[in-house]
């Protein structure tokens, strides 16, 4: 027994050596400020440069001012729309469609992806078709959607699903293909079968490419959604697309640019959510360094 405890003690000693000293996790307010500033200033600078160029074009009278307004006209207009107009309601309608459509695309894309990935004849049959679907420009689906469903929300949801689902399915297929064979062998000898094999091994292994597929699917969904909102006329539901259409009819460029800024900001915000998800997966699996110092943190955010 003494040999056993000696061996245990030696192993513990080695373990402690291997793992090294634990870095203190607390940070001072100054350090946090430094980190935030380090992540922020390149973005602030980039926005400032864009605004300056825009203002410059405006001042050069390149186009009449009502056709190409400057930042000084657009931002007050955007502010008044946010505080007075229907914009929040429109954002709500548009985002609800995006979320519902994307959720349906998620379910459909995942199911189709799983079947294609794991059933060889199905893969041969429709594997390349899925990639083909991705290459169809989203507006091409509009006549199809309107004839099939009519001018209503269903047609718009269809646009979101048909544009997003192929990317989601493809992400999952890629993920399943990248399950390490060694882990599959290990899983099989451990007795993982059927449902447990998917739950504990194949799905977690597929998660990173799957999330990449979600991210791409979201970008496509955003395209499909606005193609739908601009071209499918749904009565009594003032979405962002509807506002955009009516601004176009009134040749209200200030309103158009305001809405485009809203669309850009919403798109970036959702994309950032996917990035946070991605980073947390990478960190949990040891694929990304934990933000242990200001420097690595800055590096990590600067890359994306």
């Amino acid at each position: 027994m003494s040999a056993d405890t000696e061996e245990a003690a030696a192993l513990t000693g080695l373990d402690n050596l291997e793992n090294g000293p634990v870095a203190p996790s607390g940070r001072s307010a100054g350090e946090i400020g430094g980190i935030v500033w380090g992540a922020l200033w390149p973005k602030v600078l980039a926005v400032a440069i864009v605004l300056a160029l825009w203002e410059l074009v405006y001042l050069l009278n390149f186009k009449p001012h009502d056709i190409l307004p400057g930042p000084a006209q657009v931002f007050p207009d955007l502010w008044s729309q946010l505080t007075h107009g229907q914009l929040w309601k429109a954002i709500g309608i548009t985002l609800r469609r995006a979320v519902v459509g994307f959720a349906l695309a998620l379910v459909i894309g995942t199911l189709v992806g799983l079947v294609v990935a794991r059933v060889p004849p199905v893969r041969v049959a429709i594997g390349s078709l899925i990639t083909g679907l991705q290459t169809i420009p989203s507006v091409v689906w509009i006549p199809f959607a309107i004839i099939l469903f009519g001018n209503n929300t269903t047609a718009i949801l269809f646009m979101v699903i048909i544009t997003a689902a192929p990317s989601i399915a493809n992400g999952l297929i890629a993920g399943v293909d990248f399950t390490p064979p060694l882990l599959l062998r290990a899983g099989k000898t451990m007795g993982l079968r059927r449902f447990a094999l998917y739950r504990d091994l194949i799905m977690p292994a597929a998660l990173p490419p799957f999330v990449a597929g979600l991210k791409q699917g979201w970008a496509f969904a955003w395209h499909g959604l606005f193609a739908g909102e601009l071209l499918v006329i749904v009565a009594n539901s003032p979405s962002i697309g509807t506002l955009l259409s009516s601004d176009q009819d009134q040749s209200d460029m200030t309103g158009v640019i305001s809405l485009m800024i809203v669309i850009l900001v919403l798109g970036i915000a959702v994309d950032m959510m996917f990035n946070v998800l991605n980073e947390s997966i990478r960190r949990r699996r040891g694929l990304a360094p934990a933000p242990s110092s200001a420097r690595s943190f800055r590096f990590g955010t600067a890359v994306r």
Partner: protein
Amino acid sequence: MSTTDQDARDGQAPAPPGGPAGSAAVQITDVTKEFGRGKSVTVALDRVSLSVAPGEFVCLIGASGCGKSTLLSLVAGLDAPTSGTVATGGRRVALMFQEPALFPWFTAAQNVELPLRANGVARSERRQRVTDLLQSVHLGGFADKRPHELSGGMRQRVALARALAQDADVLLMDEPFGALDAMTRDLLHELLEGIWRRQGFSVLFVTHEVREAVRLGDRVVLLSSRPGRVLEDFSIDIERPRGIDSGETVERAMQIKEQLNEEVMRHVG
């Protein structure tokens, strides 16, 4: 060289101490394994027969290309022999690889819990079993660490705990300590030997390190290369606990190594 060693070496290829073949934990009979087809066929194993008695620790050694890992895959049921039979008599078989092959999305505890879940062990019982298993490999304090937070030796201990969680009667190990530094490896030899002696399962252990084989095995089976055949079956009767650097171990290893070298030299010309 002591006379007893000489006797052991010159004696008959020892009959497995487990008794009649039917009671062997692993019975490999005339197994041939070929890969590929037609002209490009490779014979990995050629009429290999080998038996491992219950509770016996058998080490397989051989140069590269002797089909050691192929043989383990066959015993694990991951692959089927071209001809011949592999019988384990319905015993549970667990397999450990050179890489820990832990699931990176699970903590150490969840990795060890996995075979328990797959075998339908009740949740309430699982927690205690996982704690005990991690303690048996001296990793009680690392239950919530993920694989990437552990050193190579610690990961391999988690993998050992996970293999033990399968309640196997036969533990197959494919160069499990090959990637570790010498000091860690020596400690893991002690750890493995201790658990094996307490629990009494059979071990079929593949290695290319002759000394490691002599340090651990009741028997050391030497395989030839291309095709793999059983060349020699050495009985190691050095008293346990053994040291990997002890005179007896080193001496016995030298004898076996000579034969291994002869086998390698056969492939020079």
